[in-house]
Every structure is written in structure tokens, then in C-alpha cells.
């Protein structure tokens, strides 16, 4: 009876409806990996949060008594995000038990073949300026431009807030995919402020000597936007997801995540 149930389970796992795949079927490896006590964790090393994500993954591995083997998650996609999910599906099928450093926003775009883990950190967007007279966004003249990180939660919050204000009470905005360019435009005066993820600002200023003249001000009257950072596992791996969620929970409770956020200079809070 048990054998028959197992067979049915295996059959269910391997049968897909006769319809098109998100990624071409020939790229999807159907083998079950033999990896013993290892967990394959993918991180986009081009992402600003990658060192932090790696450190959190190491702690998850320790909590689960698993050796963490790192691999790359895909990056370098168009500003439309086109192609990302296909590549992610292929990579998760072949190389990744867990993908770290993912933005887990409400109403996210993830399809049903992935499951998000518990959020391990919530990190804010910040408004950075050069002009020492500015203490909040409200101090910046309305005809000035604010740069926003294209496609970000911070930009979403900014656009939404502007839409709720009468014309004439809105700040002008330019979207930037290249954050270094946005900083250059802040320095040459084309922008009066820039709204970007706090770890990104930290990295930009670390790369630039004399970056101390850039200061963070309150975004009032708009609300602070945050990114809820977590991981993705395959929807087939519900047991693994439960284990990872438990590990993240424990790491939040024992303040391991908080310590890592301090170590990497991340603002915000553990969990979310």
C-alpha cells in the first residue's frame, strides 16, 4: 500500500499537463540530485546584497547541519526583467536548491513553480542629497529632479505618492538603472536627490573617495519604502522550504541576522 502511494507520488511529481513550459523543456533537467548533506545555494554576486546573503546562507546551512555549496543565480537582465524567470527556472532546475537575496514584495511576479521562504531582512530605501540645507524631501523645490532606482520598491512608493498629490505639488523624477550615473548626476546638480536602496548607497559611497558629503534625509512627506529580502525554493521542495523557514526563524530569534546586518552595515530590521 505504501509502495503504491509512493508510486503515485512519484508519478504526480513527474507528470506535467500537456502545455507549454515557461522555459523550453529540453533545458529542464529531470534528475533528482544526489548530494548527501549539501545544500546548493545560488546568489547573484553582481547584486549589492550578495555578501550579506552569502553570510545568511552559511548560517542557514549550519542551523540545518548542511554544507553550503554556492553557485550563481542569473543576472544582467533588461530593465523590463525579460528572460529572468526563464533563466531562473533553468538554473533552479539544475543548480540551485535555494536562491538567496530575492525581493519578496507584496504582489510579486513569481510563478507557481517557486515558493518564497520566510523574509530574513527588511531593508529600507533612502533619500540621499548633497545640499546641506535639505532635511527632508519637502525642502527640495518641486521643479527639481529626484532620481529613482528604476523598477524598485522605492520608485514604486515615489510614483504612488506623487500620483496622490495635486499637480504642482509633485517632484519631477528620472529613472536610473545605473546607480553610479545617478550619483554623478547628483554631484553635477542635474538631480537634487536620489532614492535608492540603502546597501546600494553604502556601496556607492564606499567606492567613491570623499563620499561623506552625501547625506541621507527623511523622505517626508512620502513614506519609507522597504525591500523584504528572502529566498526562493522550488515548489516541489516543500519540506526543504519548511526547514529553511524554521532556520531563518531561529536565526532571527537568536539575533544572528541582526548581528550580520550590523556587520554588513545594513539598515532596517531582521525578518519582515
Amino acid at each position, binding site marked *: 500500500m505504501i509502495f503504491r502511494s509512493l508510486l503515485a507520488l512519484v508519478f504526480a511529481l513527474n507528470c506535467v499537463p500537456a502545455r507549454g513550459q515557461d522555459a523550453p523543456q529540453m533545458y529542464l533537467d529531470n534528475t533528482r540530485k544526489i548530494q548527501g548533506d549539501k545544500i546548493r545555494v545560488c546568489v547573484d554576486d553582481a547584486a549589492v546584497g550578495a555578501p550579506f546573503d552569502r553570510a545568511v546562507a552559511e548560517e542557514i546551512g549550519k542551523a540545518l547541519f548542511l554544507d553550503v555549496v554556492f553557485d550563481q543565480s542569473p*543576472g544582467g537582465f533588461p530593465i523590463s526583467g525579460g528572460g529572468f524567470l526563464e533563466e531562473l527556472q533553468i538554473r533552479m532546475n539544475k543548480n540551485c536548491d535555494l536562491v538567496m537575496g530575492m525581493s519578496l514584495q507584496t504582489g510579486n*511576479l513569481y510563478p507557481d513553480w517557486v515558493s518564497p521562504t520566510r523574509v530574513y531582512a527588511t531593508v529600507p530605501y533612502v533619500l540621499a542629497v548633497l545640499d546641506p540645507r535639505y532635511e527632508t524631501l519637502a525642502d527640495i523645490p518641486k521643479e527639481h529632479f529626484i532620481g529613482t532606482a528604476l523598477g524598485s520598491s522605492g520608485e514604486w512608493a515615489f510614483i504612488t505618492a506623487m500620483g496622490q498629490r495635486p499637480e504642482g505639488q509633485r517632484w519631477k523624477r528620472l529613472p536610473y538603472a545605473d546607480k553610479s550615473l545617478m550619483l554623478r548626476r547628483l554631484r553635477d546638480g542635474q538631480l537634487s536627490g536620489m532614492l535608492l*536602496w540603502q546597501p546600494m548607497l553604502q556601496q556607492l559611497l564606499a567606492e567613491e573617495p570623499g563620499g561623506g558629503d552625501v547625506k541621507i534625509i527623511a523622505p517626508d512627506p512620502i513614506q519609507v519604502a522597504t525591500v523584504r529580502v528572502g529566498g526562493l525554493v522550488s515548489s516541489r521542495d516543500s519540506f526543504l522550504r519548511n526547514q529553511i523557514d524554521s532556520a531563518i526563524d531561529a536565526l532571527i530569534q537568536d539575533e544572528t541576522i541582526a548581528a550580520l546586518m550590523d556587520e554588513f552595515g545594513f539598515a532596517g530590521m531582521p525578518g519582515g
Partner: protein
Amino acid sequence: MQFYLKPSILTLSAGLAFASPVFAQDDERVYSPVTDEMIMNPPAGDWLMWRGTIDNHGYSNLDTINKDTVADLELAWAWPMADVGLQQTTALEHDGIMFINTNNSIVQALDAKSGDLLWEYRHALAEVPKSWGYLNYQSRRQKNSIALYEDKVYLTTVDAKIVALEATTGKTVWETQAFDNSKGYSYTVGPLVVNGKVISAISGCSIAGTAGGCFIAAHDAETGEELWRFNTLDDPNNPAQGESWGDVPPENRWGGTPWAVGSYDPETNMTFWGVGMPAPYAELVRGSGDGDVLYTNSTLALDADSGELKWYFQHLPRDNWDLDSPFERVLVDQEVDGKKHKMVVSVPGKNGIAFALDRDTGEYLWSLETVYQNVVTKIDDDGKVHINEDLVSSAVGESHLACVSVSGGKLWQAGAYSPRTGSFYVPLTEACNTTTPIQTEFTAGNSTGSLKFGPRVLPEGIDQAGLVDAISVNPEQGTHAWQHRQRTIPTSSVIATAGGLVFGGDAGRYIKAWDDTTGEVLWSQRLNAPIGGSPSTFEVDGEQYLVVPTGYSAAASSAASMFPEVPLPSGAGNSIFVFKLPKSDG
């Protein structure tokens, strides 16, 4: 001059790492250079470029396979493609040699009669860092065609190079890094080669690093040296172009990608290219307000010697739905009452609206709707296109049902014009999807803003997703000569022939031949996978051949939910099938 090929000599001369000559028999071949005269007026038995001719007709003068004989077609040979991925190839033929390309920039030469491999070129792609996944994605969806000119085969590659291969060996003559691949540029458009110039256009213009620059460019066919480039996103010679982006400077503009091979008019030395959508897709996000965002979704007429813009016409201003207008521009000449009319005819964009323009001036002549669409409300007599502002999102997360869908309507699958009937035959899809501006960085803090598309659904009251529309063309108007509707969607380009036939295929794996005047299906054959790429036809030793590519089809996959009773294969099956008539006993 002619080139004589002996297998033994070939083996020596082509002993390069990436070109592998293979000759199964000790034959001697003659390969005559493809001259400018042949480019302008190809031999009837040849298929020298993507759509066969520089006017992008997709039409062959061959007529052995015709309305009376097509039912007798039988398989001559078949061939598996060298790589998997999206099947978008076009088989070219000259002097009995067939040339095909596939994903990851692989080119093969085959004996067109027997299907034997003559040589294979595998482009040495730079290793892509795993963190740079987009290039892997691009490699699998490479839709560019190749082109024949003089004694060479011209290839544009996924790593933004142009490569000239010796047609008889596959040996590299030259290659040039046309654009900076590390910024995100890659080719998905094949070349148009005329008058010693390789004219093509670069893609990847929605990658962060390519902001402000998307180009049509010409390179010297002998050396690969760049001769000119035209930027579709930034034209300092036309103030109206910059103003159409509102406050957005060039460094914050993306998109404007041309992704179908252009056409060429030797009388005026103008080349005609279509340009795709702006990015970010929604004006709410890109910050351009109600600006038209030129030259996105436009036809550009450029001087082929200098790249100077002669005129432009915008088919969809203020795009908010990723409804590109980059598809094939077809050059049509018609004489009416003794007056010669020169037109550009096209279904340029995903919304399926057909346009005719005066070829010398860009003046609007007429337009005609095909599939159901709701994004354009009106086109004025002077050609000004008005969009449906009710479908423009004013808040992040605000959804609208846009018809057509992001995959068309019309897509890269090209239509064919028959001078015999004066009709333009276009493969189309009835579909809608919701569009929602969504701000979601996939990787925390990274820039990937997206317009979220809902699943493709059929418009209300329509249950036939596929449409082949025969549009009767004249300088005054376009009308529907006939429409063939079917449940599954067309997934290949179509071609027309002097035999009175139109060939094209669908997601249901059927290649079909329609009567070009009635739309009656005269022949169909079910193959191994959705019909893909572009069919072509050629003649060797007096016999006409029909080439049909099949394989993985993103269009079929994304539309599969609209015709669930027709299951798609999970295998790729990328192949070409070559048909011909039985040899007569006489």
C-alpha cells in the same frame, strides 16, 4: 568568377577550429559569387536572404509546385538542427548549397539536393559568466537570419559580432566586434547586404548599460569596418525627437530596438527599418509623460550610404503595452492608370494594423485593421495615430486588458507579398492580455522594473486564435481579399509563390498551402513540432524544393492555453523538412 570546390582542397583550406568541412562524396561544385546584380534581381531558383529579395516580399517566381501539383508534394529529406532553442531559421540557397543558421550562431552548409552536410561553422562565443544570464537567454532565442553576398555568408552573432564566412568552406574571412557586448548589446537581427555594405541593427537595448543607444549600422562587406550608425533613441538633428521624450534625457532612455531585417530600394538608395517599443514599457515609470517617444514604433527611411534619416513615420506613439512595431517593411511597386506608385506596406506592429506609406516621402496612404485590437482608437487622414488613453495606467498596479497581447497580434513571423495577386499575406493571432505596471526588483535592490502581463486570452466572442489575412493592396486602400481562420495560431512566416500558393505553418504542427486567390487549403502536412522560422523555396536541376523549419516555438507555448485540445510536444525537435514533387518518368 566562379569557385570550384574539391573536397580534398576544402579539407586543407578549412582546417580551422570552428569550421568543419565534411564531404561524403568526391564531387566537384561550382559556386558563383552573389553579385550586386543578383542581389537586386535574384535568379528565380535562389533564396539569397531572409525574405528572398531586398524588397522583403517573401515571394518566389518558381511555379513548378503550384495549385495543381502541390497535393503531390513528398518528403525529399530532413535534417536536425545543430542546436536547440527557439526555431526561427530561414534556409538560404545558391548554386545547390543550402545555408542554415541556428541558435548560438551556428551555420551549416548542406547539399541542397541530398541534405548532406558540407561544412559547419560554430561561433566561438565568449564564456558568459553565470551571473550574466541574459546572454544565455539571448543565445537561445536568436532570430537573426544570415545573408549571401559575393563569395561569403554573413552572420550577426549573439555576442554582437558580424562574421563573414567563406561560402564554400565556412572559414572565417573576417569578424568584427560591432558593438560592446559587455554593455548588453547582442544581435537578434540578421544582415541586409547590398552594394558592398552589411546593414543590420543591434538588440539588447533594454539592458541597463545600453541606455540611450540603439543603432542601425552599416559595415564594409569586405573588411567589416563600420561605415555609419544611426541611433533610434537620440537624434540631435531632429529636435522633435528629443522633445517627444519629455524631460527624459538620452541616458535615461531604453528600447527602440529594430528586430527584423530591413528592406532596400535601389532607385533611391534608401533602406527601410522598423523600430520597436520604448522602455520602461509604461510611461508612468519611464517618466516621459504623454510624449510620443520617437523613434520607437516607427518606420525609418535611411540613406544607405550615409545613414542619414530621410523620413520617419510613427505607427504607435506613446506605447504603454510593449506593442513593438519593428516587423518587416515590404516594398511594393504598382502601376495604376500609367502611374507608378512606390509604397512601403507593412503590418509593422503587434497590434496587427496594416499600413501603406509613400516610399519616397513617408506620406501616409492608408491603414487597415486585421485582428481585434483596442489600443488604437483612430488614425487621422494624415496618418496621426491616436491611442486609447483609457488603457494608460495612472498608478502602479493598475491593470488594463489590452488587445492585442504582448506576443501579438503580429510578431516576428513575416508576411509575404505576391506581385501576382497584389495581396499581402500576413500570419496573425487574436489575443489579449492584462498589462500592469509593477515595480518589483527580482534581486533585492537591483533594477528590473516590469510590466506584468496576464495570460494570453482570446478576445470575447472569438474562438479562432489563428488568422492568415490576405490583404489586397493598392495605392488607395487595403482590403481583405480573404481571411483563413483556425483554432491554433500561425507560428511561422509565410511565403508566396508564382505557383499561386501561400505556404505557412502553425502551432498544431501543420504546414499548409493556401490558394493565393481564394484562401482554400490545398495541401497540409503534419510534422514533428510547431512550424517555425520562415519557409523558403529554391530550384536545383529543374526541381523545385520547399523548405519547412520546425521546432520549439515560444509563440506556441505562450498561446497554448487558448487551444488546450492541441497539446504541444515537450521535446524540441528543431529540424528542417525539405519537400519536392515526385520526379516524372519522362
